[in-house]
């Protein structure tokens, strides 16, 4: 009995040792990627939804060299492990990025139109859970975006979540004239809401069914982000609900403002 247990234990240890050595060896073997490529460590990838909505099954991804997307170099360095000192919700617990998560975020970027990849986003980091609203997959503050656990759930479209958060930053960077043009197109009135005086929010004046999401009337930036998100992922819905906004986005960002469907490598 004792011999049996010893043999089983030894086999288990050897298997564990060799699998690690082999994996490292595998990583090492191809760790020299050519220019214009980056190295992706071997990792287990959970099932997820692609940018174009198709489901991708879980798989063991082998270590490999991957071709850099146009945005790779500038965005890879913005993925950081901890929130910056400017992040207001300091009590939200930081989390280490997994290889899979980091890779998926970078892949998402390559599917988004350049106009939304604003250079003013300084940092993207990983937090456990939102303390404001526990159903948030992500959140943003000035120039910073945090992804929560929920963003990497099997039913979430990470690119869509990312687009929404990036749109907040796009809105933040608009000039007074541009904000004013959007305000008119989206039927927000030039008058501060007296019921929320210290929020300095203008008054939304669309019919209640003319918003793509229920939280649209909460603020112009949320309305803008929802509309950009829908323009990219459900343009028909946006065009039906609020055609003036659809036309404004189309005119402002041009015909090339769309996602690169199904190119998630």
């Amino acid at each position: 009995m004792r011999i049996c247990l010893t043999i089983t234990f030894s086999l288990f240890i050897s298997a564990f040792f060799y699998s690690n050595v082999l994996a490292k060896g595998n990583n090492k073997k191809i760790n020299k990627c050519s220019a214009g490529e980056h190295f992706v460590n071997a990792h287990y990838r959970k099932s997820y939804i692609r940018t174009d909505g198709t489901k991708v099954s879980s798989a063991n991804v082998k270590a490999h060299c991957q071709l850099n997307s146009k945005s790779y170099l500038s965005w890879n360095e913005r993925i950081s492990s901890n929130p910056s000192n400017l992040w207001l919700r300091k009590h939200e617990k930081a989390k280490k990025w997994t290889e899979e998560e980091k890779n998926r975020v970078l892949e998402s970027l390559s599917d988004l139109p350049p106009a939304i990849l604003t250079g003013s986003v300084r940092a993207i980091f990983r937090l456990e859970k939102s303390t404001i609203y526990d159903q948030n997959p992500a959140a943003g503050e000035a120039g910073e975006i945090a992804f929560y656990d929920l963003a990497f759930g099997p039913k979430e479209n990470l690119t869509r979540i990312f687009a929404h958060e990036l749109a907040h930053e796009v809105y933040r960077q608009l000039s007074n004239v541009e904000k004013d043009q959007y305000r008119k197109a989206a039927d927000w009135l030039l008058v501060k809401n007296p019921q929320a005086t210290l929020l300095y929010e203008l008054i939304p004046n669309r019919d209640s069914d003319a918003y793509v999401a229920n939280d649209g009337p909460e603020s112009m930036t949320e309305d803008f982000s929802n509309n950009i998100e829908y323009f990219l992922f459900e343009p028909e819905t946006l065009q039906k609900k609020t055609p003036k906004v659809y036309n404004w986005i189309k005119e402002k960002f041009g015909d090339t403002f769309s996602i690169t469907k199904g190119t998630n490598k």
Partner: protein
Amino acid sequence: MKIFYILGLLIIFFSCTILKQSDVDSRKIDLTSVSQFKYGLSKTNEILQLFGNPDQIIALKKAELTGNENWIYSERKDGQEFERLGFLVDKKSEVVVSATWSVRIGDTVYEKNSVFSYFKNAKFESKKRGLVSQDYFSDDLIYFDSKLGLSFLVNGASKTVNSISFEAPWKN
């Protein structure tokens, strides 16, 4: 005879349109005038006296604000017409509830410090706009003097003034 009548009507119609357009072209909505109303007390006839008829009157749809109207005055800058001033008006009582003046590049109050100089008597406090939706914290800054009912919004990114608002004094 009929043709002359139609032509006459057309001439009157087009001159009205041109007149309306030139109103916007030549109009300058003076910030000092806007700041002189007693918001919550002043009546719409005072607006009409100072600025004439609004370019647009919009009925508010928001449930809590129905019965109010948004009176809009436009200006033309760099060849483009834009909404310069919006009043919130209680239709029934004709009381002017509040006003928001849109700031453009080139205005004397485009920079934050110039607003402080413009409203010398105001004692502004400031706060970040903060949570504006469940997933976004805005870094826009709100400056306000609750005793004067005066506030203005500074864009977080550009640090320039977006708009200035007037309303009845409120308890802070």
